[in-house]
């Protein structure tokens, strides 16, 4: 406890103190900050099936650019950089660091060196010390006879064969072997290899117990079909696999429950397979049939036509079914087309592909419409399909047809023309199509409307804007008309002005005839009927005496009310007294009446 009460610092002093502290922290840190680069690995002796974790630690600054590690000889980076930073101030000394972690998998056995690795930190270039790692193969023994720890996990990549033809399917299996270890999770592996198209086998990975090097292992097997799309010596793998291992956590033995139930921690690990290579051969040139189109596998072909008797111009359907094992996605049958006596249409294709017994295959159906345009058409040409049989290593050619057809003449049938004939050659009783040709150009196009898209055409916008606008107007008119028919008050209010004009016209006529009685009677009627129509009450109810009450209820200005009441009294006086008719006075009264009606019209809207 202090013996005095400290005075609070004044504003300026406090600011100075804060600034001094800040500068002290910054510069004291700077003064001690010496940049150091340290590269470490988690183990220096690994098997070909394992990954190694490389950490590059930059001490003294956090201003660093992570190295990309694209081309480390003998290794492939599968994860990273994962960045983590640290900062601490101890006894006024500030230290900061940044670490970059990578997971590297070896590409071969023997002594491999990581680095030196270049890194830029705090604007300067640094270089790490090289790290030597010994990678051992499947015997798990290092050069000095030392056994590599953890032979309990290994990943093997296997193929059916190490030689294949282009487009031939290859079954590839990736098997994770493990024993005396608890694996709780395995990520699906990536089978993307340069030069191959992968196909899923489907289903879950196969789990079973297997023997390997006289030991029993639990295994998880992933299978894929790969189809090579280029020739040469192609490499597969190494394939990395992320797994999660559950391990007893020995660090927490002091925990009462932990010692009883046991604590486990989940560790993520990367294992990798050995690489493989496959010789992908081109299909042989010798004996290659003219109709060969790249199909490799084992196939069968069926074809038929229906109906077999038609009238000229009627369609005939040619149905072709190709089935077997092979990559049906990438192959097609060049159906004959465009003969002199037929017009053909684009065939409709349906396919059902899948993998059965570890083989990719299925069925592909073609349905093509043939229309005989001449009664000379006697047959639909044969369908040919050739493929390279991987079992016998030879080409096989299947021919179905030609399909005899009886065409009868129909004089009323419309003529069809084929303007560009396909190159055809009659050979061996059937027509063999040498080259599929395209249909001819379109000669005429419509000039109207072809210049712009629909949404750029004014007519399109008229269609969108004009009808709704018209509907709004017409809907308003119809609604008004219905109201005029049913709402009397609305009708009287709308008609009031029209009727008052008629009465004023009559008053003017009476004025011209010097008929004072009629003149004032019309002015009085005009005013009374106008008020009665606007307020929807009977006209006789309006008089110089009663008008005040009605207009006050309608919220009319008191001055106007007084004026109207007085005016009606004057009209009554002039109508019923025997005084002579004064033109000047009547003219003034007429104008005054018109003004009153205008004011009333505005007030009684």
């Amino acid at each position, binding site marked *: 406890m202090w013996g005095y009460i400290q005075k609070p610092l004044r504003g300026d002093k406090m600011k100075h103190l804060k600034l001094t502290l800040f500068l002290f922290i910054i510069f004291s840190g700077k003064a001690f900050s010496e940049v150091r680069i340290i590269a470490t690995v988690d183990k220096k002796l690994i098997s070909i099936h394992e990954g190694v974790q490389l950490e590059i630690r930059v001490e003294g600054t956090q201003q660093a650019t992570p190295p990309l590690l694209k081309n480390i000889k003998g290794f492939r980076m599968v994860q990273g950089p994962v960045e983590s930073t640290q900062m601490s101030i101890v006894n006024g000394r500030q230290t900061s660091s940044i670490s970059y972690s990578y997971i590297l998998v070896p590409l071969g056995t023997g002594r491999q060196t990581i680095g030196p690795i270049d890194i830029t930190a705090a604007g300067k270039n640094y270089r790490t010390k090289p790290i030597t790692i010994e990678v051992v193969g499947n015997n798990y023994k290092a050069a000095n006879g030392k056994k590599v720890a953890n032979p309990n996990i290994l990943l093997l990549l296997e193929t059916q064969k190490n030689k294949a033809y282009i487009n031939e399917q290859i079954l590839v299996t990736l098997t994770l072997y493990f024993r005396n270890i608890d694996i709780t999770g395995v990520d699906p592996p990536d089978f993307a290899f340069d030069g191959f198209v992968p196909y899923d086998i489907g289903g879950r990975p196969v789990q079973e117990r297997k023997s390997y090097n006289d030991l029993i292992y639990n295994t998880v097997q992933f299978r894929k079909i790969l189809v090579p799309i280029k020739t040469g010596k192609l490499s597969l793998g190494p394939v990395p696999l992320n797994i999660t291992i559950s391990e007893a956590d020995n660090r927490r033995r002091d925990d009462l429950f932990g010692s009883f139930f046991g604590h486990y921690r989940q560790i993520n690990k990367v294992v990798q397979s050995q690489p493989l290579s496959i010789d992908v051969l081109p299909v042989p040139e010798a004996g290659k049939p003219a109709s060969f189109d790249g199909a490799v596998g084992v196939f069968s072909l069926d074809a038929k036509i229906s109906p077999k008797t038609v009238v000229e111009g009627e369609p005939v359907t040619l149905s072709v079914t190709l089935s077997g094992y092979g990559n049906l996605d990438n192959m*097609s049958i060049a159906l004959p087309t465009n003969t002199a006596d037929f017009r053909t249409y684009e065939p409709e294709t349906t396919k059902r592909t899948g993998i059965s017994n570890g083989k990719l295959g299925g069925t592909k159906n073609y349905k093509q419409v043939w229309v005989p345009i001449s009664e000379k058409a006697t047959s639909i040409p044969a369908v040919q399909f050739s493929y390279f049989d991987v079992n016998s290593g030879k080409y096989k050619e299947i021919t179905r047809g030609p399909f005899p057809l009886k065409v009868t003449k129909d004089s009323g049938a419309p003529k069809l023309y084929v303007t560009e004939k396909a190159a055809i050659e009659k050979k061996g009783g059937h027509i063999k199509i040498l080259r599929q040709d395209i249909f*001819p150009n379109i000669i005429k196009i419509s000039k109207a409307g072809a210049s712009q898209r629909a949404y750029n055409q004014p007519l399109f916008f008229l269609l969108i804007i004009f009808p709704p606008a018209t509907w709004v107007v017409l809907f308003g008119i119809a609604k008004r008309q219905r109201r005029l028919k049913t709402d009397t008050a609305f009708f009287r209010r709308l008609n009031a002005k029209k009727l008052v004009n008629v009465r004023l016209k009559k008053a003017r006529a009476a004025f011209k005839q010097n008929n004072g009685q009629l003149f004032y009677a019309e002015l009085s009627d005009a005013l009374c009927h106008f008020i009665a129509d606007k307020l929807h009450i009977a006209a006789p109810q309006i008089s110089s005496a009663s008008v005040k009450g009605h207009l006050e209820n309608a919220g009319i200005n008191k001055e106007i009310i007084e004026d109207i009441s007085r005016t009606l009294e004057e009209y009554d006086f002039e109508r019923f007294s025997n005084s002579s008719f004064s033109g000047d006075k009547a003219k003034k009264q007429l104008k005054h009446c018109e003004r009153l009606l205008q004011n009333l019209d505005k007030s009684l809207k």
Partner: protein
Amino acid sequence: MIKKTIIIAAIFLFSGTVSAVSDEAYNAFIEANNAYLSTNYSKAIRLYQKAIALKLNSGGVYYNLGNAYYREGKLGLAIASYLKAQRLMPRNADIASNLKTARNQTENRIIPYEVNPALKQFLFLYFKFSLDELLWVSGALFACLFIFLSVYAFVPAAIIKRLAFVIGVFLIITALTAAVKVYKYNADKVAVVVKDKVIVRAGPGKSYASRIELYDGAEMKVLRIEDKWVKIQVAKEKGWISEKDVKILHF
């Protein structure tokens, strides 16, 4: 006043609201056809492109352009033109046939996903009608709907109400189909390789590893475009390809 408005609107409606093709564009098309017939395909290509630049936006022009490219041996450009033509004239059997012929001659033989014919029949509005046709039909149905509503305002007969309802249902179907088409054209852009051979790489740059080789005419789905590199998907493979090596079919 109402009469005047109607008269002015009618005059506006029937005076040149449908934009016709300019003579220059049409003449270019005719000249191109003549050049094609005389086997001068490079001239035909130039003239078809001129007609398109002059806004002759017809499926026939793209189809003929595709034929000219095909004759010149430019499979990728031919396929791209046929695809464009097919969007404008989806029921034309000749376009489908020529597209198939061109595809059959490509090296990669990547056959795009084919929709089940039964589904095609069921969704015939989507597959058999072009976007322009759908828009015109929607516009006409929209106008009809409001004409019926206008008549109903004066003659509130049940039959008119029912007809307006039926038109409304058809309008929703055609307008939704058109909207889906616009969305698909924008979301699922297609690109076609227009070089003899291109390399699909793992990343957007030449320094990235090569993954697959594609040849002239190979079709692919465009995933995104980034700094003159296009991320594409072919079958189940993904990768990057230089923008200048492909023709992208824009909306």
